């Protein structure tokens, strides 16, 4: 079945073209002047100003620890199993001095492969892996450095609070206009800004 496309019949003024150009010029000029004088752009001047991340933003993975400092992970491989990108490599080992016998000798996530789906967090029976760091600047100069290992992920939150504990509240006061200072992103959803 073919549906004939509805074509807009152009009026004489529209076909003159120049009035339409003037209309377009008016719109763009209005934007330019408004932005020039009001300086009220939605752009966030990253890296100096940072967008407050929502609480449930999935950032870099971290490994949580027990009170005694050992990782909670028991190398059950549930995360490795559920990972759709197959980016988690765990080498299990036995800790003879721990009632929880099994622990990960090495725990690696290849961040180049990771797709940040968060399944590992959901699959973990021990709440050992979380993505609540709010860290999205995951970069390195070599592929090898993009593989986060156990030590890195355990110490990732040193000196920081994870998102859920209002990681960004400290910066909230300086959030640019257009963003609620109270952590959640508030952008006009109707796209009406300036138009």
């Amino acid at each position, binding site marked *: 079945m073919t549906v004939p496309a509805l074509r807009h019949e152009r009026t004489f003024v529209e076909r003159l073209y120049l009035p339409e150009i003037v209309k377009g010029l008016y719109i763009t000029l209005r934007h330019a002047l408004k932005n020039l004088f009001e300086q009220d752009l939605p752009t966030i001047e990253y890296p100096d100003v940072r967008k407050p991340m929502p609480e449930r933003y999935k950032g870099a993975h971290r490994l949580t620890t027990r009170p005694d400092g050992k990782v909670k992970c*028991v*190398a*059950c*491989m*549930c995360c490795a*199993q559920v990972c759709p990108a197959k980016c988690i490599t765990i080498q*299990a*080992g*036995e800790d003879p001095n721990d*009632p*929880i*016998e*099994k622990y990960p000798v090495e725990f690696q996530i290849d961040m180049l492969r990771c797709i940040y789906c968060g399944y590992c967090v959901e699959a973990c*029976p*021990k709440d050992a892996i979380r993505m609540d760091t709010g860290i999205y600047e995951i970069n390195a100069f070599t592929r090898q450095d993009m593989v986060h290992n156990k030590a890195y992920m355990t110490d990732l939150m040193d000196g920081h609070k994870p998102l859920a504990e209002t990681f960004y509240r400290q910066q909230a006061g300086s959030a640019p206009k257009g963003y609620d200072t109270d952590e959640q992103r508030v952008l006009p959803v109707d796209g009406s800004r300036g138009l």
Partner: protein
Amino acid sequence: MPIVKINGVEIEVPAGTNMIDAAAKAGFDIPHYCYHPHLSIAGNCRMCTCEIEAGGRGLEIACNMQARDGLAIRTDSPQVKAVRRNVMEFLLKNHPLDCPICDQSGECRLQDYYMEHGQYESRLADPKVGKHKRMDIGDHLVLDAERCIACSRCVRFGDEVTGTGELRLFNRTDHTEIGIFPGERISHAYQGNLADICPVGAITSKDFRFEKRVWYLDETDSVCTGCATGCNIRVCHQQGQVFRYMPRRNDAVNKSWMCDHGRLGWQDIASLRRVLRARIDGKQAELSEGIRAAAAALRGVDASSVAFVLGTRATNEANWALWKVARANLPQAGVYWCQGNDPGAWSQVDDLLMDADKNPNRAGARALADHDAAIGDGTDLAHAVREGKVRMLVVLHDDVLGRLEDAAEGVAVLHLGSQRNTTADKARIVLPATHPTEQDGTFTNRAGRVQRIRRALPAAGDALPDWQLVELLGAALGKGPGARDAATAFKLLAGEVKAFAGMTYKDLGGGGLPLRQPEPLPSPPPAQPAAP
């Protein structure tokens, strides 16, 4: 034979058949923990409870029910389901639920049956009863009494199969736990089976401990090559690496058991003693070069001074191919098979499974020798070598030089094998063959049962399957036996040798078939374990 009715399905089974087996035959799975087809009935897990419709009344455990005429049971009535759910709740009451660190998870009956028959909400308000954990009860075993459901399978195995009886159930009610007598350790050679039969994670294997979650493992059916018994095994592997061998049930060979030596047989797959590349005069070479050099060497000597030795560790296909190559290209050459163990082979023997002959295919080589009377045995070969008639030996896997201890110096050896041994080290030309886990083929066990091995792994190094190596050697000499793959090789073999007549890989299936003309064999048939 009595006809029983299970969930309305009538089925005819031999009298006295256990109803769990009868139900399985009818296509119904009755959950069970303590029942094991090769152990006595204990009836203490109560999981197999079924409702009797006719020929009795009430609920009874299926494992202790024997098929008799007029018996009708139901395995899916609401009552049965309620019983199962309650049984699961009891069994799991003190279970630590440490599945994340338990090696059994993935193949644990508690996990499976909870999902199938449990699914209750926990009502436990009191702390769980703690028991002994991580007990070192044997060289290959770890016992976690907390995970135990007291099914007593391991106790019965010790009592009935090995007769050593180290394990017992101690204490009463919910303090019941499996344990060994103070100061004792399990030291028999069948420890691995305890980990296998344990339906939960109470007894686990030290060798496999924390190595791999079982759900990652691919499984390939094969046959143990540790000795002539030919226990059926399952090769558990992932990404080209073998993690464990598991016994595979074959009532005619190994029931459900295998010995610990065979269980660790996978360790020589990637061992340093593997032959991975062709070698000519001690120098590494391309495989094609090696084959060309071997063919040239064979043509370079007087054909009558060449001796082909069929391998008692090589597949039937390879032995047949070697025999064909010898007959087709060097008719004057002698063909022998050489009985006896390689020097340094493991020596443990008992009347349960471990055979004195440590070669998996002696019977197969013997069958070929019976087919062609011109094939001499080890004594003939020793004679010929001593008399100086043999200038060149072509050896398949076996450590022939080691067996002929006083073998004359100066005999050029062409060795086709997967493991280094005295012969391979002294050989002029060595061609790499695959390990049995890396190829298809058949072995004939001590009782004359032809059983299949299947390729589980990619070949290591340049190695080629036994039959293919021989095939290429034959082609280089002028005429190969003409097999495209192991299956056609076996088909050609079956068409030619009467003992194998009519067999195909399909017919062999998982359990194998006995040779057509069972040969009287020197060693006695395996002793039957104590009957239940």
